[in-house]
């Protein structure tokens, strides 16, 4: 490769440059053509003695121009291409293509597939067999196939949402190379060291021996997200990159389970840093709703962090031993606790049942936190369930009271209690009420400031055991514990040595009470420091050993979009995994409110570039710029030079007289014509199009108007256009069979030049990569929509589109249009009743909503079965590929299968009939509701 990304497809044409000197001689010899003049008295002139004629030679600069012209044409014929796609090694043996399809390949997957496709195609052209391996797929035997088969297979490879595991690929590769030693290899890698990249490269190199290994990698690799943590103050997440490059901004989007955006946060990689921490600062209530964090625009599963219930709003079961007295809530022992818990938790109170039943019910519901307010003794079953629950991670908060004070010893208290309470400051006691003195620095209350106004009149006392000091979280002025707590298994128990109401102390009235409860509740879901990330603190069902696995609910695909779990997804262990694997793709596992989330990157993950420097491999970039043929431009320059040459010759021959004389107009015309020719040649793509028609082509107008016709927009994609035509033909037949409308056969329109106003409905299949219409065309489309036309945009991507992601092509298309506010077709929209009664709008694919212009809101007191705004919605958007469902062949059979059964096709036809009826009749059906009133007014 030369330094310039310039290559010639027919370099032998450059030999023509050798002919230039000959041309130079020739041009030197041929003088410019004289100016021709009719001259009747020539005979007289002939008699004049001829003067000595000096030979006239071509001026040197004109010579230069002509030589340059010839050189440009020769260069253009040599088919120069800028940014020619590099192809794989042009050997003769089979080509082994290894393509990384882990999450890091997803952002530029199309480019990777293109690169692989080009390499395979080149190999196929050379008659070489191809072996294609995707590194994130399960290893299997590698067989040689033809290029065509390999391309077929390449098409179905998709990026997977986990790291590629490359090492298992080496044995089959080794086997292949041993069989066919002349194999050469192309490795399209994601550039990351993850997945044994270096070892794989070494192994590949060793296996190849002296065969060539070409590596395609991009300088910039994917970005990742890891270690999302719901810290007390905010949600933090770590953004990762593999290159210690310069400063780079990124944006983190936090959204909830339903995909609604909760916050966008900007972050920035510092220069040289490979990770950056972004902080999502939200109110705790909103923060608990965050289920997904992602880097905006990263388009990879690695840049998504899913959050499970650990950071979610907790449900707290509240059980009291006292009989509930709802008539006097202020006296209820649970009133203050529930009020204090409400800001950050859902409080469920046990009503109308005994404490033991309530505890069993709450344990069965897998609540993370249970509060027992002055509960003395439980039944044996409840007690066992509760202690098992605590061992599995439950947080038990107990409050003292007369019942607890009188209850026998149990193991659900953090400390052993003395029987009976202790009364301070009473009439018979000499001690004064004790204030709250300090929070233990080891306890969860350490950061809180000690309130001055809390006094305790009565408390239960702990036995002074050896381990008591470790378990005290808060102490009174005389050193007796007020709050104690201890971890038991994965969970913990905490005991407030006072009641949950104001009988024993005024602690429940204090603001510190809320903070203290919050601190304790926050401990639910956090893990013992010795085992980070393990367990997800899921308070599983009591029989934790049995419920060891959770089935996948929703998983991510390689691009980071949610999808239903693939068939290969296995249940994940209940305690979760640090990182996703092939068997456990990232996503949510288990029930919605108690599942675990698996992420691509473990919390301690870091990204690094694969180090290939020690290996003798040829590394070239993947994403190369689009190859641009330069020949049209060279031809254009040559044409300009030719025109300039003509003008010069014209002027040399006395053409200036023409320019200044009466025929200046003609000359101006000639120059204008030359300019036109220039413009035509400057746009080689346009030059191939038929000449622009006049404003309204009469034949087109007659054809379009002599009968009502459906129309579709020609996209230029032959297959799409064929389907649009076949689809509208199918719909036309259906309309003719079932309705009073008998449309003519559908027509293709080009919004850039055809008059659109003849058509009631235009079907517009949105093709990715289709050029954006010109501003003039957009103006025409806009006018058509404003003046009552309707356009049905079909993105045809209901199956493939990521939810909530707008179709890029459609977005680009609509960017230039004045689109009204849209809504999904509401149940009472007239579209659902225009001909058939419809509930949804399926096409080839079901489930894609149909978007129409938003209707004005229902007025109060108005009860109408059908609503329609004024006129017809100018725009309808669906992704269901309606034309695909309608499309019929010449014999009337459907061309394409639907995603469902044949009934779905019938429904698609009904959708089509309704849409056409809607565009033709507007709000007529909606107005039908007035018929009874009208009849009544007429005196019936």
């Amino acid at each position, binding site marked *: 490769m030369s330094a310039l990304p310039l290559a010639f497809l027919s370099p032998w044409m450059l030999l023509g440059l050798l002919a230039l000197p000959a041309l130079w001689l020739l041009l030197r010899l041929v*003088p*410019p053509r*004289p*100016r*021709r*003049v*009719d*001259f*009747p*008295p*020539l*005979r*007289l*002139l*002939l*008699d*004049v*003695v001829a*003067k000595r*004629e*000096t*030979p*006239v030679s071509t001026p040197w600069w004109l010579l230069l121009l002509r030589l340059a012209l010839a050189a440009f044409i020769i260069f253009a014929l040599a088919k120069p291409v800028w940014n020619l796609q590099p192809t794989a090694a042009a050997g003769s043996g089979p080509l082994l293509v290894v393509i990384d399809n882990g999450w890091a390949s997803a952002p530029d997957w199309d480019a990777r597939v293109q690169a692989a496709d080009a390499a395979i195609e080149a190999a196929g052209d050379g008659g070489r067999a191809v072996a294609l391996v995707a590194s994130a797929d399960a290893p299997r035997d590698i067989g040689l196939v033809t290029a065509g088969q390999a391309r077929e297979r390449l098409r179905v490879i998709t990026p997977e949402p986990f790291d590629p595991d490359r090492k298992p690929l080496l044995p089959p590769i080794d086997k292949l190379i041993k069989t066919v030693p002349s194999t050469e290899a192309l490795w399209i890698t994601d550039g990351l060291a993850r997945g044994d990249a270096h070892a794989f490269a070494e192994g590949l190199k060793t296996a190849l021996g002296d065969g060539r290994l070409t590596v395609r990698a991009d300088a910039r690799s994917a970005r990742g997200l890891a270690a999302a943590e719901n810290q007390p103050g905010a949600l933090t997440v770590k953004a990762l990159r593999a290159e210690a490059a310069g400063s780079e901004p990124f944006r983190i989007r936090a959204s909830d389970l339903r995909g609604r955006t909760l916050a966008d946060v900007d972050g920035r990689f510092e220069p040289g840093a490979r990770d950056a921490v972004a902080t999502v600062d939200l109110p705790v209530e909103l923060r608990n709703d965050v289920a997904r964090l992602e880097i905006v625009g990263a388009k990879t599963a690695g840049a998504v962090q899913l959050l499970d219930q650990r950071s979610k709003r907790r449900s707290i079961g509240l059980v009291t031993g006292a009989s509930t007295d709802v008539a006097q809530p202020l006296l209820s022992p649970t009133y203050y606790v529930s009020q204090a818990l409400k800001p950050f938790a859902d409080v469920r109170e046990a009503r109308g049942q005994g404490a033991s039943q309530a505890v069993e019910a709450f344990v069965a519901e897998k609540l993370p936190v249970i509060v027992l307010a002055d509960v003395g003794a439980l039944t044996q079953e409840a007690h066992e369930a509760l202690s098992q629950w605590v061992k599995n991670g439950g947080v038990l908060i107990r409050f003292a009271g007369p019942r607890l004070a009188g209850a026998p010893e149990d193991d659900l208290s953090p400390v052993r209690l003395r029987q009976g309470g202790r009364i301070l400051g009473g009439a018979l006691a000499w001690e004064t009420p004790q204030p709250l003195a300090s929070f233990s620095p080891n306890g969860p209350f350490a950061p809180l400031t000690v309130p001055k106004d809390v006094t305790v009149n009565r408390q239960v006392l702990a036995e002074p055991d050896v381990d008591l000091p470790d378990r005290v979280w808060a102490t009174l002025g005389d050193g007796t514990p007020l709050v104690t707590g201890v971890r038991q298994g994965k969970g913990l128990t905490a005991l407030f040595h006072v009641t949950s109401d104001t009988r024993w102390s005024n602690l429940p009235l204090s603001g510190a009470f809320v903070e203290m409860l919050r601190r304790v509740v926050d401990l639910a879901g956090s893990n013992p420091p010795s085992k980070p990330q393990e367990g997800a603190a899921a308070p599983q069902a009591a029989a934790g050993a049995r419920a060891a696995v959770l089935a996948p609910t929703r998983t991510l695909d390689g691009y980071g979009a949610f999808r239903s779990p693939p068939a290969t997804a296995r249940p994940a262990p209940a305690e979760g995994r640090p990182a996703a694997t092939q068997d456990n793709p990232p996503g949510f596992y288990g029930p919605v409110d108690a599942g675990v989330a698996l992420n691509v990157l473990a919390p301690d993950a870091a990204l690094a570039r694969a180090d290939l420097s020690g290996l003798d491999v040829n590394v070239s970039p993947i994403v190369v710029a689009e190859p641009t043929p330069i020949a049209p431009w060279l031809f254009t320059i040559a044409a300009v030079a030719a025109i300039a040459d003509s003008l010069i010759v014209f002027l040399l*021959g*006395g053409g*200036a*007289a*023409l320019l*200044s*004389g*009466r025929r200046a107009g003609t000359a101006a015309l000639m120059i204008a014509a030359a300019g036109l020719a220039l413009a035509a040649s400057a746009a080689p793509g346009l030059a191939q199009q038929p000449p622009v028609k006049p404003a309204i082509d009469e034949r087109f107008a007659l054809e379009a108007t002599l009968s009502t016709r459906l129309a579709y927009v020609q996209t230029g994609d032959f297959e799409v256009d064929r389907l649009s035509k076949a689809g509208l033909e199918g719909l036309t037949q259906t309309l003719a069979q079932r309705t009073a409308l008998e449309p003519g056969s559908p027509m293709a329109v080009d919004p850039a030049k055809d008059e659109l106003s003849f058509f009631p409905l235009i079907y517009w299949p949105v093709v990715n990569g289709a050029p954006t219409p010109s501003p003039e065309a957009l103006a025409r489309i806009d006018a058509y929509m404003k003046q009552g036309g309707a356009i049905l945009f079909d993105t045809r991507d209901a199956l493939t589109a990521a939810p909530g992601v707008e179709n890029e092509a459609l977005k680009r298309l609509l960017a230039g249009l004045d689109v009204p506010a849209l809504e999904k077709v509401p149940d009472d929209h007239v579209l659902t009743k225009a001909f058939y009664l419809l509930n949804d709008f399926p096409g080839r694919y079901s489930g894609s909503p149909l978007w129409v212009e938003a209707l004005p809101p229902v007025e109060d007191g108005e009860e109408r079965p059908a609503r329609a705004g004024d006129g017809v919605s100018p725009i309808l958007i669906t992704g269901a590929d309606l034309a695909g469902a309608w499309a019929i062949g010449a014999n009337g059979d459907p061309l394409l299968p639907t995603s469902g059964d044949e009934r779905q096709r019938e429904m698609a036809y009904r959708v089509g009939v309704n849409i056409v009826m809607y565009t033709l009749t507007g709000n007529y059906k909606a107005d039908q509701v007035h018929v009874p009133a009208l009849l009544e007014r007429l005196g019936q």
Partner: protein
Amino acid sequence: MAVRAELVEREAARVTVRHEDAALDLAASLPRLLVAARRASSTVAHGLHGRRRSGVGENFWQFRRFSQGDPVGRIDWRRSARDDHVYIREQEWEAAHTVWIWIDRSRSMAFRSSLASVPKIERAVVLGLALADLLVRGGERVGLLGVTRPTASRLAIERLGQALVFASEDTSELPPAEAPIARLAEAVLIGDLLAPEDEIAASVARLAARGGRGHMVMIADPAEETFPFSGRTEFVDPDSSRRLVAGRAEDWRAGYAERLARHRAALGEIARRHGWSFTIHRTDRPASEPLLALHARLAEAAF
């Protein structure tokens, strides 16, 4: 400034109604033209305009008493019956002149440069037809040499114009050689007269063989006179399609001017030799100039 010169299209060079109209306009500005009768003689072909004396004619002139020797057949019996005398009816003597006009219609006449407003052929036709109209209004007979017979009709312009329209293509640069004109007739040759001098001399000598008088009008485009060309130029002769490439046309100007002057001098000499007149008309001048000159020449009394 370079001068552009070209041949107008064949269609544009054809004689059409517009020439007749232009000729009529031109002729209307001049008085009646009486060609001087050089010799009063009854042998002159019957003419149309009266000579204010009795003689052979169609119009009544006077009654006079019958005198001895008068032919009986000339007695006007109706007049004689009114009194006792016998009267003879005398007609006014009418003597007519025949003028032959020849208009060069060769391809070279279609030449026009940017210095002139009309091609040479246009000027020649207008001039010829206007002259014909003047002559006819003066009572003379006019014919187009080689195209029509003489006519004295008041509609001469239309007739001659029609004849020119339908005449066969004539590419010769000289009048037809068929017959010399009559002794008392006159010839008017209108053309660019660029043929070789000896051919012109032979042609004129043939026409004047019987003593007919004549006038030569040389229609010249200003470009043919001033030779305003420069630079590398290829000159093409429209009649013979011969061509000449001049490297620097301006170098040829002096020689050409000198040669043109010699050509004209030779033509003047030919005219003088036969008692004819020779006029040069440039197409950038008004057409009335040569018409006036011809008028004057033709009206010269030469009794």
